[in-house]
């Protein structure tokens, strides 16, 4: 079975030969992968080099956490790729950005108002959590279209705080 893995713009062709051999590009390599513990932690030995990673699927790709580094890998099987999967993710590119609470906490300050034009990096809200005040900043320039919080509000994790158009 042949797979194509894409990561940071580079495509890697990986052919599974048997349980202990793959062909990576043109080179046959010896691999041994096992799960360690009951968590999605895997130990890989590839041509003698020992690696360990936590690997779990995201909505459309795989997250690989290895030596403190996080990699996002898209994996496609050859046939799948030939058939061409519907292009996902295009929706997210367009339209609005919704600022969500990264953690539960208390809104300390909201230095913006609806209709305000903001710059990238501008503080949109100050959220207190774990005894620290955290500034939530605009990831890009835009206009605050819907403001759903005010100072003093308690918010839940992932609650939408405001919308940027």
């Amino acid at each position, binding site marked *: *079975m042949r*797979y194509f*893995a894409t*990561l*940071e713009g*580079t495509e*890697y062709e*990986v052919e*599974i030969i048997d349980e202990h051999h*793959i062909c*990576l590009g043109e080179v046959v*390599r010896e*691999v041994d*992968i096992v799960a360690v*513990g009951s*968590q*999605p*932690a*895997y130990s*890989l030995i*590839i041509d003698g*080099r020992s*690696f360990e*990673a*936590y*690997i779990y*699927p995201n909505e459309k790709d*795989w997250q*690989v*956490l*290895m*030596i*403190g*580094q996080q*990699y996002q*890998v898209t*994996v496609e*099987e050859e046939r799948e790729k030939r058939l061409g999967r519907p292009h996902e993710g295009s929706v997210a590119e367009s339209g609005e950005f919704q600022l969500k609470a*990264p*953690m*539960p*906490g208390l809104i300390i300050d909201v230095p913006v108002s609806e209709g305000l034009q903001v710059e990238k990096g501008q503080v949109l809200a100050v959220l207190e*959590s*774990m*005894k*620290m*005040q*955290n*500034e939530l900043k605009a990831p890009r320039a835009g206009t605050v279209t819907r403001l759903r919080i005010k100072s003093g509000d308690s918010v839940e*994790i992932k609650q939408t705080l405001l919308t940027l158009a």
Partner: protein
Amino acid sequence: MFNKVLIANRGEIAVRIIRACRELGLETVAVYSEADRQSLHVRYADEAYLLGPAPARESYLRSHKIIDIARKCGAGAIHPGYGFLAERADFAAACADAGLTFIGPKPDSIANMGDKAMARATVANAGVAVVPGTEGRGNLGDEELLAIAPQLGFPLLIKAQAGGGGKGMRQVSHLDEMPTLIAAARREAESSFGDGNVYLEKVVQGARHIEIQILADTHGNAIHLGERECSLQRRHQKLLEEAPSPFVGDDEELREKMGAVAVQAARAVDYVNAGTVEFLVDKDRQFYFLEMNTRLQVEHPVTEMITGIDIVAEQVRIARGRQLAYQQDDIQRRGAAIEARVNAEDPYNNFMPSTGKITHILAPTGPGVRVDTGVYTDFEITPYYDPMISKLSVWGETRGQAILRMRRALEEYKIVGVHTNIPFHQTMMDSHRFLAGQYDTRFVEERYSIVEMEKDKEKFPEIAAVMAVLVAHRRALETTHVMRRNERDTSNWKWFGRWERMRG
């Protein structure tokens, strides 16, 4: 003399205190909020009582309820740990009124040192140098502060009188921005300590934060255990501490001078129990009294590791009326120790706190490694308390060995489920400035970038690609062969078979 101690705290420090009490043969009582029912301190204590809902105001800050529990369960003493009620003179006084031993200094000493302005006035009177500022001038209004500021010169700091741990603190570069910053500092101080009073303090440029650990008994004996270097901070929160200080180094004269001054400061408030005198030290080795923490310090393990003294056990002994087991000449340093505070926060995203369930922990062990923690696999990190998951401390024969050991320990440390600042500590152990001991209190904020630090780090995209493919392939196989997949669908109950031969 008490035989049962209530620990009015949570997390790693509650566990630390339980351990010390247990090693002294004392019974332990935990208190906990609804969010902490499964915490290690509740599991480890002999007794445990619920305080209330998660927010500290409704649980760990309920001093009357805590005293009430102590009386009902027969605890003769209360250890406050750090934070929460540890530096509340009224709480210490209420303990005494209730006939309970407060494991800490006298209420007067706390009050004296707790009001930063009064503390400075007190130690200045005792002949200790203080950082220039408005200390001792009472509760100044905004107008007065704005008038005094240009005399001190910029940059300067606005600090909460009742504060600690960087809360209610703001740095001011120009007079223009001062009104807004005073308001912000007062607001934060008010919400954190119920006291909005602030004072001004000159910023010592290139300053090192170096503190002296004090022990004093009820018989008039007071000694110091040498210094800790705590200059690695971010937003006035310490991130990494070490002992001895690489700045003080072999300068025994400076060490002894700071130690003697710290003992003097402690004596000025008739201090009893463990305490820490914090100094700012400038490039010319002039040192200024900053504040005194009238409690156990987060970073006490580094001092324990190089002196061999169990500071928490010593606190309890002092509270039991014992004489100090050591005289100043008994205190000997050996090697070097470093502590890394492992926090649930994302160093790649402006150190944003991270909450969630810790699904996996593999903690470093082995020679010279100590972990203090209140969490374990499957523990939930909540947003209610500080983000500290654990303190990772290492000891080495030399500072160099301690750094290499810290690197090794950080590499071994696996925490999955929340973001942690382990990558920050890793880059710090590789930083030339840290290796050379050349850092001041502004280093992390002004000169540190994790992206910059990691740019030479070896990456393994090809390996990541291979691993993702192999796991995806496995999963595809398992989905195909439904039988095999079902084998893995093991419910909790089916696992019971595994426990057959179990015994502690």
